[in-house]
């Protein structure tokens, strides 16, 4: 082991490798409830070439590698299930290019969402990227590779759909470029080439390490507004979402259902955020939204909340720091989080199941859904708060998480950024040939099985 340690030091420099108990402890877990898995080394490369050397070394020594962004998924995906090397990518945080005309940015994969957000605000104020509601330390690479979504998802879909191309180090050490950048100096698109980006998206780091990412940017309008449609009938929510999203006005639509604060309990609040170049456009968009749901307004069964401008700012904050605060509702520093991608029509089922599971397990919950595209699908989420200092409470949240994953699959959804048991639940329902294909791809790309082993595998 000492030899590997010395080799790693040679690659990245003494300062950026550790095998100390303190780092091994911290990098063995994330903020969720999964059990710790200890790495042998933590290494922080500063360039694609260093990543390549680390991968080659790992191949040579047959050591597992687990790439890591900010470890904020809460489902333990950056835990090294079989030990080995955790590659913390956050030193690779340079913003390499912003293209104003074709609206994309090229960044190193460890660049934080917050850094790109601030950079665009300062240097390209007419552009923005889709910011997820993860804390701003979340990395662009990590979020895209897990199929994240964010504040422009009603406009542009999943963050993977906003990916123009990437550079990656394959498990065997080759550096590849995917998308237009493999042919042209411009990182403008993944088409018209065979779309190889899928080899890296949603694989939980089992097919390589992305080192550069090109993402789409969108206009940052001078006027931004939010309307919140409040109702108390979950069965009507799919129709309301269909109507609101169908206006093609929204940049972001989220439904929030939470028992805290108490006044919010029992209601579905559908937040619609949109931007405009002028007051006229703003009013037009507002009126289009109102027109779309006039049936509900007329029947007095739903309506838009009147909001003061100060309140609007809080609701439009990207990322929403308020969501993180849910971790302290039990004075315990944690919440467990299940996201499940689902068709919109199962919203009522998903909502009721979530409440049922929360009640059965006695956990404090918050649920919601982010609408992807013009009402094409949704990312339904369940968050269960727990007190980290109380092992029984942690177990309760863990159990609620497992039950929720199972329930999501039962009603036709698919758990997002699934932790190992959820991955296995997905595999059990998956077309066997699809899973076989996954295995063949992995075998081809990673003959030594070094890339984040333990993920997307059938339990032995």
């Amino acid at each position, binding site marked *: 082991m000492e030899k590997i340690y010395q080799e790693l030091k040679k690659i990245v420099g003494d300062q950026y490798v550790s095998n100390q108990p303190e780092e091994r402890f911290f990098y063995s877990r994330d903020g969720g409830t999964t059990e710790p898995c200890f790495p042998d080394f933590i290494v922080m490369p500063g360039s694609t070439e260093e990543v390549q050397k680390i991968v080659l070394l790992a191949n040579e020594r047959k050591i597992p590698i687990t790439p890591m962004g900010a470890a904020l998924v809460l489902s333990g995906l950056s835990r090294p299930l079989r030990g080995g090397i955790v590659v913390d990518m956050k030193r690779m945080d340079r913003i390499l290019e912003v293209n104003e005309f074709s609206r994309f940015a090229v960044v190193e994969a460890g660049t934080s969402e917050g850094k790109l957000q601030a950079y665009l605000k300062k240097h390209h104020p007419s552009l923005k990227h889709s910011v997820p509601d993860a804390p701003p330390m979340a990395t662009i690479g990590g979020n895209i590779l897990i199929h994240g979504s964010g504040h422009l998802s009603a406009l542009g879909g999943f963050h993977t759909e906003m990916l123009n191309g990437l550079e990656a180090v394959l498990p065997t050490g080759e550096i590849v470029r995917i998308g237009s950048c493999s042919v042209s100096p411009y990182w403008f698109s993944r088409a018209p080439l065979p779309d190889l980006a899928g080899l890296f998206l949603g694989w939980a780091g089992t097919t390589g390490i992305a080192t550069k990412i090109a993402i789409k940017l969108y206009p940052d309008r001078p006027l931004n507004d939010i309307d919140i449609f*409040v*109702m*108390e009938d979950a069965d009507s929510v799919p129709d309301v979402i269909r109507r609101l999203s169908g206006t093609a006005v929204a940049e972001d639509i989220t439904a929030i259902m939470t028992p805290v*604060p*108490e*006044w*919010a*309990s029992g*209601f579905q609040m559908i937040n619609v955020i949109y931007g405009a170049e002028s007051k006229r456009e703003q*009013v037009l968009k*507002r*009126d289009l939204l*109102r027109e779309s749901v006039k049936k*509900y*307004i007329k029947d*007095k*069964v*739903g*309506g*838009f*909340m*009147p909001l*003061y*401008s*100060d309140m609007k700012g809080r609701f439009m904050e990207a990322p929403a720091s308020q969501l993180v605060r849910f971790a302290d509702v039990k004075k315990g520093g944690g919440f467990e989080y299940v996201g499940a991608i689902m068709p919109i029509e199962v919203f009522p089922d998903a909502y009721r199941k979530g409440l049922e599971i929360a009640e059965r397990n006695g956990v404090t919950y918050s649920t919601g859904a982010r609408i992807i595209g013009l009402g094409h699908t949704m990312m339904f989420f369940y968050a269960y708060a727990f007190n980290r200092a109380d092992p029984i409470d942690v177990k309760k949240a863990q159990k609620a998480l497992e039950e929720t994953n199972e329930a999501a699959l039962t009603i036709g959804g698919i758990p997002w950024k699934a932790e190992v048991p959820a991955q296995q639940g997905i595999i059990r329902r998956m077309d066997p040939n699809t899973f076989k294909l996954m295995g063949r791809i992995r075998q081809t790309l990673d003959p030594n099985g070094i890339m984040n082993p333990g993920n997307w595998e059938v339990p032995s």
Partner: protein
Amino acid sequence: MTMLKYDPEICEKCETVDCLVRCQYMQFDLTQAKEEKLKLLAGESSRVLEGCATCYACEEYCPNNNHPFYLIVDRQEELSTWPVPIPLVKQQVKMMSPKGKITPGKVNTPLINLCFFPMLTGCIRGRLFDGTSLIEGSDIFCNIMWLHFAKNSVIRERLPKIIDTIQNNYLAENGINEFVCFHDECYGAYTHLAPAFGIDVPFKTVHLFEYLTKRLTVLKKEITPIRATVAYQRPCSNRLIPETQHWVDEIFNLVGVDRVEREYDRENALCCGTVLRAMQKDDIADDLQKRNLDDMQKVGAAYCVFNCPACFFTMKDMVTERGITPILMSELCQLALGQ
């Protein structure tokens, strides 16, 4: 349930029906007004119930002090003619409920009742409020806002409890029998609405305007006249207590500002628009806000003075966009005192 102190005979005999004829949001000639009024008296549905902007103005317009607005709200509730979508009403009722976080303690006079506006505690400062005590919170929220939601039942349920809370947790044990209402709504609730609803009020209330006038008079030597033109945004709740309006003029005189005559002031004041938005009537809200702002701009107002925090939070940004500085009445006084 406490009954509204209301005399149907007065309305039946009323020759002017000012409550409807003078309405700023619905059009009635005298004949139509009389017809609709009779429907209301008979407990029948009327277009008044759908069209009412709940601006309280008819309480001021009624020459007989016969509470036409309170009657409209009672009828809306009896006939389930909800002005605001039901989930919004339910949510607001929960949001504004007393939270039982009463912390009785030593208070003294002058005692300022800040209603349920925790964000405004910073306003109670400096020479203007020297030596005052402050109470605030959901448990002393006057609940008059339910007039906008056809929920007089909530007022009837909560207001007596609020009065009891104030009396027994803050006043009685400190030997106090009066406080200053920071918000028009509170003063209106205790001096106008409660008697009309047959709810006993064991304490005396002082309007903020009266308090400010007296303090400014004491501190007169410290005042630097502001020398600016102001537009005053008169809130709906002041329609219940028009007798307090003269204090506004006195305060403006004391701080050296000119309450310029404009179309939408005094008895012709316009609603800030928030309630109309809750009613989902954005087109009407847009229109009246525009008219109001155009009017302020036309008269060259440098400041728009608010006393209602809800009006302030609703209009402050749009007023600023017109190059006019939004300011609360108490802050205007602070400005004159150099605070």
